[in-house]
């Protein structure tokens, strides 16, 4: 039976952590059973390179040192791999325990519990019962449904340019975009990427669910400077019509349209079962008003009224 990968990785980690001098590939191959069984030199070499990358993903700092004969040797020094002293009390441990549960994405959920396990091994106390005993009734969850998330997370982390096909909200066909990814932000349950769009020569925000197909990495480094502060949320809010620029006056049937009432700056009872409301007017308000059908009448401005009437006509003639 082939030796399980976890056993092989564990052995490599222990060998590299346990040695005081760099070990050559030859020595490692002689010490680790799975490598002896690897067959050809080629397949061993490939396996070894992959394993080294995997251990580095796990946080191991592995140094490559050439010996006098020009042969590469490897070691993971104790002092560069040791967790600095950290003392957490039971309350702090419980709080981190709650935080570690919020990810609904395999890689980050695994990484978060891995972090807790390392802290636990370093002496972090256990909460009585991390869930039941915890007084707060809140269960926050970070949803990650977008397949583009993981490759973009790695690209943001490693500052690697990417290419993907992106379909704008109202476009029939996707377009290829070349992007230097800066940050990922989750707002209202959706993930957004901010970065430098190379072809447009400008900062852009992308909604991950509109990325079609694969996210591919590109060689090379960033060409544009990464700003200190990236404002994803303001951009998304303006898409969502939450950045009001003007005021609209509408008639609303009483008892209807609560969300409009909640944001109204003035309400006047017209006495005939209708109210007159002043509401902030930003992009997207027409679509929202038209949803209410005959419960709402736009009084001004005229362009908003015309937009709503156009939309109603399209539905009326179906």
């Amino acid at each position, binding site marked *: 039976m082939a030796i399980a990968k976890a056993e092989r990785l564990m052995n490599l980690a222990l060998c590299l952590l346990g040695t005081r001098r760099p070990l050559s590939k030859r020595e490692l191959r002689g010490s680790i059973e799975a490598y002896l069984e690897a067959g050809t030199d080629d397949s061993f070499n490939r396996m070894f390179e992959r394993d080294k990358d995997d251990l580095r993903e796990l946080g191991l700092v592995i140094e490559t040192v050439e010996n006098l004969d020009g042969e590469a040797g490897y070691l993971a020094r104790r002092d560069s791999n040791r967790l600095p002293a*950290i003392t957490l009390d039971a309350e702090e441990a419980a709080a*981190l325990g709650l935080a570690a549960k*919020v990810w609904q994405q395999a890689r980050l959920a695994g990484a978060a519990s891995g972090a807790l*396990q*390392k802290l*636990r091994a370093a002496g972090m106390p256990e909460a009585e019962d991390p869930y039941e005993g915890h007084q707060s009734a809140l269960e926050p969850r970070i949803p990650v449904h977008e397949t583009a998330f993981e490759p973009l997370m790695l690209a943001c982390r490693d500052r690697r340019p990417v290419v993907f096909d992106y379909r704008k909200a109202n476009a029939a066909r996707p377009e290829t975009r070349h992007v230097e990814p800066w940050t990922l932000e989750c707002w209202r349950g959706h993930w957004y990427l901010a970065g430098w769009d190379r072809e447009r020569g400008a900062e852009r925000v992308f909604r991950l669910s509109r990325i079609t197909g694969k996210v591919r990495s590109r060689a090379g480094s960033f060409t544009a400077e990464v700003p200190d502060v990236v404002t994803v949320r303001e951009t998304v809010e303006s898409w969502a019509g939450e950045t009001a620029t003007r005021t609209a006056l509408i008639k609303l049937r009483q008892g209807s349209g609560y969300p409009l009432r909640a944001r109204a700056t003035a309400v006047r009872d017209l006495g005939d079962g209708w109210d007159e409301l002043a509401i902030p007017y930003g992009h997207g308000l027409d679509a929202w008003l038209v949803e209410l059908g005959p419960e709402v009448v736009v009084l001004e401005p005229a362009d908003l009224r015309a937009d709503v009437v156009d939309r109603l006509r399209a539905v*009326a003639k179906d």
Partner: protein
Amino acid sequence: MATNAIDQTRRMLSLVTYLRERPGAHVTDVARAFGITEDELISDLDVLPMCGTSFRGGDLLDIDTDGDRIWWHNPDDVAEPLRLAADEATALLVAARAVSTLPGLREGDRQALLRATAKLEAAAGEAAGASSRFSVTFESEGGVFADVDRAISERRRLWLRYYSPARDKLTEREVDPIRLFAVGHTYMEAWCRLSEARRTFRLDRVAEIRLLDEPSVPPEIELRDLSEGLVQPAADDPEVVVEVGPGGRWVAEYYPHDSAEELPDGGLRITLRTPEPASLRRLALRLGGDGHIVSPPELAVSAREAAREALAAYESAGQV
């Protein structure tokens, strides 16, 4: 939890450090400390004796268990606590920062979380650097949240004035709260005494809330598995078919659906199920020229009539 080799290796490295400090540790305790099942722990303990610094030198880890306690007979100093990887620091720090911004979090918990976050940043060092590139904001209505949270911990019934977008109406009802959760928006799951059923309430649609003196006595029900998504239509819910043009593709992003077929013009034919098809009249109106309801026909008719009635108000005012 499905065990992949990476997660298992990560866990085993921490496990040896943990076991070194606790000779004769109990399987149940260790499994709980590591957040894994006893079976997962036993499978780790099966692998560890095959690991060491040289399988031929005989310096393998001599770790064994009788199924109850765990013994390591030749502990060595390989087992030091390991530094955090960039992904580990990122996953925990981003989550901790997000949770600490929840307006409804108890102040004591928030302070503990902020202290833990600061210590973690210091201990993670460089590995914490990339975590600033990711952020998560939970939406939450502070005042309503605090009342629901208090009702849950004091087991009290709540009175709500709640906005239902499907019916465009505010309704008053009494509910027995079960739990609060945040997925983008913040929600309360509760037993609704009006409909005698489990209901999910989005907190930003609560117009008014009051704590009642009656005790909350929700029936024993199994909590919904939220990983399946918030809206989980039943198999026997009526089907609605909507065709949208390119400008209406967003419908597929916002509405859970059974299928979305590509149309030649760049649009989609979306099939979804909902307990109340009439609630989709809003969608039909919103779509305007960007799409229409294919079925059920009565829904298409009701949207058309609503649009005509609305237009009549503009016409009678001489505004079109």
